[in-house]
């Protein structure tokens, strides 16, 4: 088995416009290994989210994509709809940046937590509920059992985001794409969610593709970084290399504009690099 788990080669995402096509993602390639957190960094509009949607094959109707994507050796870019449905959730999980709107308001939490298990693993409902309770417990939700019978509007944004993560984790996907998972959250909850991601990689050995514009988040959690700008990857490297010795002017700008990086790095050292598998 190759060590690289998610392999993206020459991916482009284009939109037709009145004046020709616009490339939201322009010929990018990267790999994600098992037990690794790869941060895809860039400002909004740099193509990070389009990249993740392309991997999930959830692009808007108007978008076209080219390139090859493989997961654990299986090419998924050309899969038909039904086979892609088998991949989504089970082999690549995804959590989105809008916790307030990403849960269905008229379905109970229990249903939304268990439907993936029932669908992918043919798990009986009661068993799926037990798994869901365990997953909610894992993400630190008190009294998870009663939560299953509640509707999303009962929960705060942080709770919803944890529910979303727990739902994605019940299926133990080999790759988890987290699209700005902490942007909508306040600082304390942010830290908890990031810990969850780190935990996921250490405990399950999953690969996490962390999409963010926040260098602080990167410094705290990621192993490697790919910097995106204008649909292209302008720089890749380990967190240490990129943060201490950025090559590209754009990366330098990103780091300079983020004054908390230093502090986060120091904090991380002090905690003895808790994120690393030894």
């Amino acid at each position, binding site marked *: 088995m190759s060590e690289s788990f998610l392999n993206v080669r020459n991916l482009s995402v284009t939109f037709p416009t009145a004046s020709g096509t616009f490339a939201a993602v322009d010929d990018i390639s990267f790999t994600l290994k098992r037990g690794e957190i790869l941060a895809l960094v860039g400002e909004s509009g740099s193509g990070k989210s389009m990249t993740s949607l392309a991997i*999930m094959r*959830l692009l808007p109707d108007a978008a076209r994509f080219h390139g090859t994507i493989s997961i654990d050796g299986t090419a998924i870019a050309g899969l038909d*709809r*039904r086979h892609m*449905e*088998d*991949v*989504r*959730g*089970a082999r690549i*999980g*995804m959590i*989105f940046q*809008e916790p307030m*709107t*990403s*849960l*269905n*308001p*008229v*379905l109970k939490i229990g249903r939304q937590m268990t*439907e*993936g298990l029932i*669908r*992918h693993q043919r798990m009986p409902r009661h068993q799926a509920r037990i798994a869901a309770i365990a997953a909610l417990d894992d993400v630190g939700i008190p009294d998870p059992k009663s939560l299953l019978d509640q*509707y999303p*509007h*009962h929960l705060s944004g942080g709770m919803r985001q944890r529910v*979303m993560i727990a*739902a*994605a984790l019940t*299926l133990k996907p080999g790759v988890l794409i987290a699209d700005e998972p902490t942007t909508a959250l306040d600082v304390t909850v942010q830290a908890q969610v990031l810990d969850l991601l780190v935990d996921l990689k250490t405990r399950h050995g999953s690969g996490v593709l962390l999409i963010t514009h926040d260098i602080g988040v990167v410094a705290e959690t990621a192993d490697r970084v790919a910097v995106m700008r204008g649909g292209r990857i302008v720089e890749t490297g380990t967190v240490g290399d990129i943060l201490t010795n950025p090559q590209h002017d754009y990366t330098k700008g990103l780091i300079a504009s983020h004054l908390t990086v230093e502090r986060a790095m120091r904090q991380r050292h002090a905690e003895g690099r808790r994120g690393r598998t030894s």
Partner: protein
Amino acid sequence: MLFLIAKRVLTAFVTVLTVIVLSGILIHVVPGDPVTAMMAQSVTATPEVMAEMRSQLGLDLPVWQQVVLYASHVLTGDLGTTIRGNEPVARLLFERLPNTFALAVSGLSVALLIGIPLGFLAAINRGRLADTAVMVIAVLGVSIPGFWLGLIMIQVFSLKLGWFPVAGSGYRNIVLPALTLGLTYCALVARMTRSALVDILAEDYIRTARARGLREHQVLFVHALKPALISIVTVVGLVFAYLMGGQVIVENVFSWNGIGRLAVQAMLERDYPMIQGFIVVFASSVVIVSMLIDILYGFLDPRMRQR
């Protein structure tokens, strides 16, 4: 939630009261003297008879007093008596109200049963052939007058094919008028369903459901349909109001024994107490049904139930 219900009930009451007052005032906008207009065809219209009728209708009082008097009568359930036959208006109307409701509810069911699937089909095929086809049907649908559609139905299904009786109020008789009403208003339902569903399909939670790997039919029929149906409930009241507008004519086309038919007869005979009574009862039905539907919505939507 209780507060919302109370507020909704109050709004409905104010609306009904406005209608009562308006229909009390309207009798005074009749060009000339209503009694003369009413008695135009009557041979027994001696001046004494007319004067008596005037005082019986309270027409010799100042307008505002008449309106207050009328409103207070209506609120105690007294809608006056008909000029022809001197029968209580309320009794005549309430005798026929069940027939009218039976037809309206059947028509509404047909409209929903046809309109919702059509709107659903259009929304999930947005921009494609099926969508265009449904929208063409919808614009054709709102352009066909109900009474003409009804006449065509009679011609084809009753006279040519002999499947249904031409007129009457039995259970077999309800099929054609209900279809006529339903087909006339299913276009409206289809359109509303489509726009509700198009909005919902663009929601983040639909993307989440897909990201979870659910089968497309699960995404559509569970994650999209349920919220869509809840939001369709909010417009059912509106559809019902429109449908009641078409109801009067359809009742007359099919000689359906409802209050719409009674009303048109009263209008042709200028039987004003009956006309006023019809307006009050008919408008109240519309108001009360849409109020009940709004309250039902409150119970269906978990976000509303909370409050």
